[in-house]
Every structure is written in C-alpha cells, then in structure tokens.
C-alpha cells in the first residue's frame, strides 16, 4: 500500500493524476495540475473517499515495461504476418489486392523480426491461426485487411506513450507504415482513408476484444 502512495507522489505525478483521478472527480484539468496538490497525497485520498477506485499508476515508462509492451505488440504483428502469409500461400488474389498483400506481408514479417530481435531469445513464438476464407475471397480479404491494420494502428498508438523514448521511435516507425497500409487498403476498398483527424489509442483490452471479434482462432 505504501508503495502505491509513493508511486503517485514521485515520478510523473501529473500523468498518474490525469490518468486516474480525473475520471473520478469533476475537477478541471487546471485544478489537477498543481504538483503541490498531488504531492501531498491529499488528492489521492480524496479520490478514494469519493467512492471511486483509482487506476493503478503503473504507467511510468521503464525498460521492464517496454519488454511487456513489445511482447504484446509482437502478438499483434504475428496475426498480421500470419494473415498475409496465408494469403500468399493461398494464391487466390489477383491484381492490386494481390500486390498489396505481397508488399504488406514483407513489411509485417520485417516488423516481427525487428520486435523478436529486440526481445531476444525469450521472445514468444508465433501462434497458428485459422483465417478461413478471408485469405481467398477478395472482398473478405480487403475487409479483414482493413480491420487488422486499423487494429494495429490503434494498438501501437495505445502503447507508444508508455514506452521509453528509444522504443518510442521504433514503434513510431512501425505504426507509420501500418497507417500507410490502412490508407492504401481503405482507398482500395472504396472507403474514406482518413475519416478522423486523430487516430484512437486502444487499450490492451480493446485490442484483445478487436482481435477476438475477427473470429480468427489460434
């Protein structure tokens, strides 16, 4: 318990406050800002008494957390790489979708390799997936590609601010390419490639749910 208090007082206390307590209280952002209020722990205590449960303030970037994050992002890249590999093996696509799958598949494999090499010998292994007819039916392929690339962009954006700065650059260089994939395949699909001015940052739960929603079983 004392450790939890300590964590809220030290480090980037602003983020701990903003991340958790302002969901519970109706304080304005201006009022939450002052380090004095946070440092005293008074605000955290009030937060608990107000009846809400503060979020675990474990979001301070660290090398250890980087590792967990990269393992998680590797899982997302594994799904994509496996998808495009299955598509290429199936050989059922023609024209631009085929060209898209080939090029993007190369990128996803490179992303997997980069993350595995960062994680070293203990990196998780690639699971097997069953993609059904999403790898052969052109319309289902395009819709699935849109879903997976959107999922990847949101998952990466969700974790980028939690990484240490060197890993922030690595992840930005990857999400940039995933977003290009999205722009490309959405235009291919006749959909607006940029309907929103800013992309969502997905939590781990949201990404997990999105993965489950694709129906692809491991």
């Amino acid at each position, binding site marked *: *318990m004392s450790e939890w208090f300590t964590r809220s007082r030290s480090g980037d206390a602003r983020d701990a406050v*903003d991340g958790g307590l302002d969901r519970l209280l109706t304080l304005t952002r201006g009022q939450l800002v002052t380090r004095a209020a946070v440092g005293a722990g008074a605000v955290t205590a009030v937060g608990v008494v107000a009846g809400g449960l*503060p979020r675990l303030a474990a*979001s301070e970037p660290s090398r250890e957390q980087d590792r*967990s994050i990269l393992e998680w992002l590797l*899982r997302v890249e594994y799904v994509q790489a496996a998808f495009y590999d299955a598509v290429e093996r199936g050989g059922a696509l023609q024209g631009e979708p085929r060209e898209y799958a080939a090029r993007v598949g190369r990128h996803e494999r490179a992303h997997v390799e980069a993350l595995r090499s960062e994680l070293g010998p203990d990196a998780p292994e690639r699971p097997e997936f069953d993609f059904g007819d999403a790898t052969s039916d052109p319309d289902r392929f395009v819709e699935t590609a849109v879903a997976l690339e959107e999922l990847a962009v949101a998952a990466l954006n*969700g974790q980028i601010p*939690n990484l240490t700065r060197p890993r922030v650059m690595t992840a930005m260089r990857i999400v940039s390419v995933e977003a290009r994939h999205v722009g490309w395949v959405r235009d291919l699909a006749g959909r607006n490639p940029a309907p929103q001015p800013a992309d969502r940052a997905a*939590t781990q739960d949201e990404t997990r749910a999105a993965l489950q929603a694709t129906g692809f079983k491991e």
Partner: protein
Amino acid sequence: MRPTWRSGFGAALVIGGLLIAAAVAVVVIAAPSDSSPADPALPSPPRPAFTPENVPLGGPPVVYWAPVLAATTVRDRPAGHGAMAEVEARTPEGTANLVLISRQAKRAAGRLWVRVRAAGQPDDVSGWVPRSSLGGYTPVRTRLMVDRGRLTVTLLRDGRPVFRADAGMGTPGTPTPTGRFYVRNKLHRYSSPFYGPVAFGTSARSAAASDWPAGGFVGIHGTNHPELIPGRVSAGCIRLKNRAILRLARLMDVGTPVTVR
C-alpha cells in the same frame, strides 16, 4: 507518522488506511480477468493533450483576389495573342494592384495561366494572365451593391445585407459607371476633407475622365458636403457621409466585388 489509537482522528486515519488498502486490493483483483499468463496487464495510454475534430470548409463560395507582382497583359486565351488590358503592379495611389480570380487554370506554352478580372472599360475585363505574375490568393466574403436609382449602397456578407447607406453618385453628365468592379485599395490618414476620413479605390473608371491625371478611377469615400447626400452630385465617385464611410471601412476590405446598377 504512525497513527495513534488514542484520538478519534487517529482511528479515522487507520480506518481510512484500511479502506485504501482494501481498495487497492480490489483494484488488483478487479484487473482484467481474461489475461493469459503471457499477457500482463498493460497500462492505458495517457489522455492526449488535445483531441481534434474535423473542420469542413462550408459556407457560401468566396471570391479570391490576388496582387499583381509584375506588370503583365491580360490575354483573351492562355498564351493567346489578343490583349484585353494591361495591368500594372501598382495602382496610381502606390498600393499593390489587384485582380479578381475567376477559378480557371490551364497550362499553355509551358506555364500555368489563370483567368482573372481586371480593371477595364466600360467595366472589368476578363482574360488570362500567367500565374507567376500574381501573388497569393486572399478570399473575401463581402460584396457591395450600388444602386444608382435608389442612391444607396448595400454591403452583403455571405450573401446577407450587413450595411446600407445613402450615397452621392455621378451627375448625368459625369455618371458613375455601371457594371462589375472591385475594391482595389483602402486609403486613410491623408489630409483632404473633400474625400473624408477613408477612401476606397475601385477598378471602375469614370467614362468622362479619359485624361484624368490619376487614371480617372472611381472611389468610394467620405465627404465635406454631407448635405448633398443622397444626390447626383459627383464626377463619378460614390460619396458617403463620414460616419457611414467609417462604418463601411470596418466591414469591407480590398478585393470586395462591387456591382453598380
């Protein structure tokens, strides 16, 4: 500081501490329950410092004006030989000369040409100039309607009237010209009571002023004879009472198209 058991406050502190411990425990237990051992619970991202929303352009179409950077000939076609008018880089008042942009662009003879409206006679001429002879485009949302019959001027903004005033206009012998024109400059801080506190220059030329030293352009300005307004009293200019011209100066900017009927 260790809580003391003796005071009620101390007891409250202990109870508070236990509640907090319980809360933390509940939080820990209530963490996402379907995480596999391989997926430790990762923190949520911090809330972004801003969240933009799309901004569509909307609104009625605007008119663009551009300054003339280099004197050029307005031609009847892109890279054509027919000369419709000459445009200088400066007005007689020393300000940047302007043209209105007509939203047509074409490549010809290795350059981009754009269609413009420029000062001409009896009213504005329409023709083509090289894009490189013009500066940046600025939009305007206002339009001035000049009614010679009613002796009024009305300013529209986004198509809606926002200003109206009585005006003095040209005599039958020296009439205010009719047709389409536009405001080219805004003059102030000169000392000349005849023109009032503010004067707008337009692309309109008075028909009866071919040998006028400064080109014979028609202006919209104040006056030191307000008793003549409304009336057909000028050599072509549009005169407003000084309070009205000052109001107009706050609402109307250069590039505003002017239609005189």
